[in-house]
């Protein structure tokens, strides 16, 4: 008797959707154990972390505020990952969106015209798009690995943002402190629920969810992306223009991440500051995977991720738990998910003699 790993003849659809649920359950169990190690009642800990943040309507609205930027970034990333393009640069694209958008907002904020806000948002999207254009061009024309270039560009974007906020975009009446002037109402996102901070950014995110759902499920473009993602050479044989798809997915992701960035500064923050993002672009990577690269899944996953962030704050305020628990849970969630995903294509069988089938798999490789 031994436990045999056996490849399923077909990928299990059930496991595909069960796996994230299983991962969440495992994370909750581990979370409970950690609370016990911390000397807390595990139920009280889990309650404070996952229920208390959304125990009132204001909490729900804040969940939306926190989820909006992650949702936008993750939607963009999911398109990239479906096409097997490993963009890690959503963070930098978000920051560039915030930077370019803020520059536009500061230049036009005294105007009373109603096109100012849409123009500012467009500038934010373009900022992210242009930043994503760099890895796209380098990948298409210089064969450069997008993982490394997009990571490097994150650091460069952060420094450019700091440069701007310490220099040209600094509030002239702000005593040299590194932040821009407060945005006027003309360039501030409208609040969609009175008395909260819930802003238009969430609507933009939901719009992206709906649009991409249709695009991926119903259009030829979506089909092409999926085929390229499954097997680049198959797509090549079918005559798809791989370069065009690289441009499409990276630029789309850049634009969405840029939109997330400008929504943050013109929304809840209200000015350009050095710390626009506490790592939304990285959290979005987890969210994209957790949501199975599916728009609805990503929506749910982004809400969960926002809850983990807020739970970390609650745990600190109410129970004095260390703040790091939040990011610990994020990492665990992704680990469990990856482990559970094994059960999509394989099953475990306690059997003595059946030999597993072997399939060389070239689909998930990384081209250098």
């Amino acid at each position, binding site marked *: 008797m031994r436990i045999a790993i056996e490849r399923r003849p077909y990928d299990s659809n059930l496991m595909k959707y069960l796996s994230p649920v299983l991962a969440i359950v495992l994370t909750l169990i581990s979370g409970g154990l950690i609370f016990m190690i911390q000397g807390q009642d595990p139920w009280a800990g889990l309650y404070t972390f996952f229920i208390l943040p959304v125990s009132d309507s204001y909490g729900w609205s804040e969940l939306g505020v926190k989820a909006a930027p992650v949702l936008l970034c993750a939607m963009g990333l999911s398109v990239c990952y479906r096409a097997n393009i490993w963009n890690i640069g959503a963070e930098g694209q978000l920051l560039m969106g915030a930077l370019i958008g803020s520059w536009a907002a500061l230049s036009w904020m005294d105007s009373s015209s109603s096109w100012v806000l849409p123009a500012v948002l467009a500038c934010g999207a373009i900022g992210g798009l242009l930043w994503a254009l760099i890895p796209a061009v380098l990948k298409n024309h210089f064969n*450069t690995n997008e993982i490394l270039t997009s*990571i*490097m560009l994150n650091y460069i974007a952060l420094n450019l943002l700091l440069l701007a906020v310490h220099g040209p975009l600094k509030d002239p009446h702000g005593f040299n402190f590194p932040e821009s002037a407060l945005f006027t109402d003309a360039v501030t996102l409208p609040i969609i629920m009175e008395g909260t901070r819930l802003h238009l950014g969430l609507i933009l995110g939901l719009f992206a969810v709906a649009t991409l759902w249709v695009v991926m499920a119903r259009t030829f473009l979506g089909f092409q992306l999926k085929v390229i993602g499954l097997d680049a050479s198959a797509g090549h044989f079918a005559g798809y223009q791989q370069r065009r798809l690289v441009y499409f997915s990276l630029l789309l992701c850049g634009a969405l991440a840029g939109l997330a960035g400008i929504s943050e500064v013109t929304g809840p923050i209200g000015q350009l500051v050095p710390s626009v993002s506490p790592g939304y672009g990285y959290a979005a990577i*987890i969210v994209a995977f957790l949501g199975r690269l599916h728009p609805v899944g990503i929506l749910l996953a982004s809400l969960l991720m926002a809850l983990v962030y807020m739970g970390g704050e609650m745990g600190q305020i109410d129970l004095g738990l260390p703040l790091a628990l939040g990011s610990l849970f994020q990492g665990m969630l*992704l680990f469990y998910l*990856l482990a559970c995903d094994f059960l999509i294509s394989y099953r475990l069988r306690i059997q003595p003699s059946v030999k597993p089938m072997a399939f060389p798999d070239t689909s998930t490789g990384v081209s250098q």
Partner: protein
Amino acid sequence: MDIELLTNILFAMVRTGTPLLLVALGELVCEKSGVLNLGQEGMMLMGAVVGFIAALTTGNLMLGVMMGIMAGMAMACLFGVLAIQLRANQVATGLALTIFGAGLSAYIGTDYVGQGLSGFQPFIVPLLSDIPVLGKVLFSQDALVYLSFIICIVLWLFFKFSRPGLMIKAIGESPYSATAVGLPVIPARWIALLFGGAMAGMGGAYLSLAYTPLWAEGMTAGRGWIGLALVVFASWKVERVLLGAWLFGLASIMHLVLQGMGASISSNLLATLPYLATIVVLVLLSSNQSRSRMLAPMSLGKPYHPAG
């Protein structure tokens, strides 16, 4: 620029480059076997925090380094279980490792932030340290820096002349043909991966025990990613990793040195230089497609499914 200033800058260059060198050498071996582990940052952070706590509680720096290495290897084990055994996507697993390592290290290090210990002191090599300039730069450093030199030489010899070295290269090129000629693909990948974890852990411990002997959340500040870039920068060659790590070290201190000299370039702009340099080198290396194909291990990042 006078000779003393030059010596001092080169000395700081070697020091600053050492953590990069350690982590990049580990990742180089790992990638040679076909495993792409993007979790360097997470492994380094764990090495840094565990090494620091061990050294602080026992008062023994070497023990701290050992524990840092163990922590890096433990993290690599996690990666191995998922990416080698369960054949999960290596990119996603590596990212998970980085996020998890950042969280876990911050969590276990909470009580140790702001504590100090007396870190590794320089060990002046007799005679060699009397060589002008080079003596100060290369032979007045601490023990871990010397260790990094030794590991460089050993790895260079390993890949150049030894059978296991060639074996790892063959496995990285094509695990399936390697299996066909009877090479143990899975065990070899595990060993390469664990070596990578150990080196990243040591790189982290270097930061928390020698470079800035204290623990601070996220203190690796992207060095794990730079280590990854360095491997590509060096086109998978040991001697070029050494050169690259020192160049990076130089780039990251030069912007501070230039400020001290009164240069009025923005410090933020100067701080982007190492990252820009990496991108430029990546482009130069990869633009020639056939050449870059030859340099990178062919199976890099692809899970290996053993035949029954």
